[in-house]
């Protein structure tokens, strides 16, 4: 499996973009900047998926991650107060000793992973030597046989069809379990994000806890910043 010509050029562009955007996600001071860099990293990885011939996953990645999850992240960043971080008033990373220990660990992980990939890939190539002969040309020939798209610049591949086939034929039970998982996640996040007032409205709070909390809140309300009051 090799990418040739322009595919190789775009591979390098998008992989370098993904890595740099990932680095900036981790290093950015402002959480909103982090989210925007993460979006560009996810888009670059989606482009890599297209280069690998997985158009359906690339589309799902853009719709679900960039369109859904990252918007959720941005909303939560707006809800919590990150003013101190933006103004450079507080540290964005842990204590130096923890950082040094974790970076040493990451370095070891890099060395280990690269070594594993190197040796493992050599073994894999040796095993599949006969099957990989001319695989690229064969794939290109198959690609040429596909029907052309309306603009004539690309071909209509059967990737989405294959994924759907496989998903409903061989993975229908995991598919149903995933739908239950999403339902549980919806209910769980609604339950978690409720305020005490909303919990009292459906009457599943111990009255003593509620009255204690109300008096405590009234005492705290005076010294809370203005922006926080309308949150609860």
């Amino acid at each position, binding site marked *: *499996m090799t*990418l040739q010509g322009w595919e190789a050029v775009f591979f390098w562009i998008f*992989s370098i973009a993904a*890595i740099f955007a*990932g680095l900036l*996600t*981790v290093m950015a001071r402002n*959480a909103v900047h*982090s989210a925007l860099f*993460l979006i560009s*990293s*996810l888009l670059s*990885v989606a482009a*890599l*998926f297209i280069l*690998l*011939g*997985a158009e359906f*996953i690339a589309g*799902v990645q853009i719709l*679900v*991650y960039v369109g859904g*999850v990252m918007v*959720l*992240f941005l909303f*939560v960043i707006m809800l*919590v107060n990150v003013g101190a971080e933006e103004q450079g008033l*507080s540290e*964005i*990373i*842990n*204590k130096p000793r923890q950082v040094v220990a*974790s970076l040493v660990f*990451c370095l070891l*992980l*890099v060395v280990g*992973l690269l070594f594993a*990939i190197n040796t493992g*890939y050599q073994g*894999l190539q040796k095993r599949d030597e006969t*099957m*990989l002969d001319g*695989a690229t040309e064969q*794939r290109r020939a198959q690609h040429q046989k596909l029907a052309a798209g309306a603009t004539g610049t690309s071909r209509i591949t059967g990737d989405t069809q*294959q*994924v759907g086939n496989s*998903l409903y034929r*061989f*993975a229908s039970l*995991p598919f149903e379990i*995933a739908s239950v*998982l*999403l339902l549980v996640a*919806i209910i*769980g*996040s*609604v339950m*978690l994000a409720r*305020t005490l007032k909303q919990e009292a409205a459906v009457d599943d709070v111990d009255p003593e806890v509620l009255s204690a909390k109300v008096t405590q809140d009234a005492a705290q309300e005076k010294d809370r910043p203005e922006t*926080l009051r309308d949150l609860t």
Partner: protein
Amino acid sequence: MLTLFTPIFAFLLQQVDSGRFGVMWQSARSPDLSKFLVIGALLFIIGVAGVLTRRNIIVIFMSIELILNAANLNFIAFSRYLQDTGNMNAIAGQVFAVFVIVVAAAEAAIGLGIVIALYRNKETIWVDEIDLLKW
């Protein structure tokens, strides 16, 4: 003008194609499975470094998304590799990637719900100040 420079380019390319640098150039011109695995490993390491070093709990969640995305890249790369070697079950890698995306979405929804609840009660998003379970 161009004809004047053509032999120079040819000479340079000839020099480039031979030797140790030439081997690297040849492998960079046709990226294969191992390149995708290296990119996935680097994204994974960046995510791990983010989880271990940052104080902001939202950025830690974003780093986890980065880690899951690196895993997805590996799944898709192996799927393509198995397609090219003629494996019948090659598309399973893409099905796995769909499930990884589902789990990531559920995890992000629950995690951000926890962040909101935590912020209401503790008024902090720094992970080192959230030590309720410490004795």
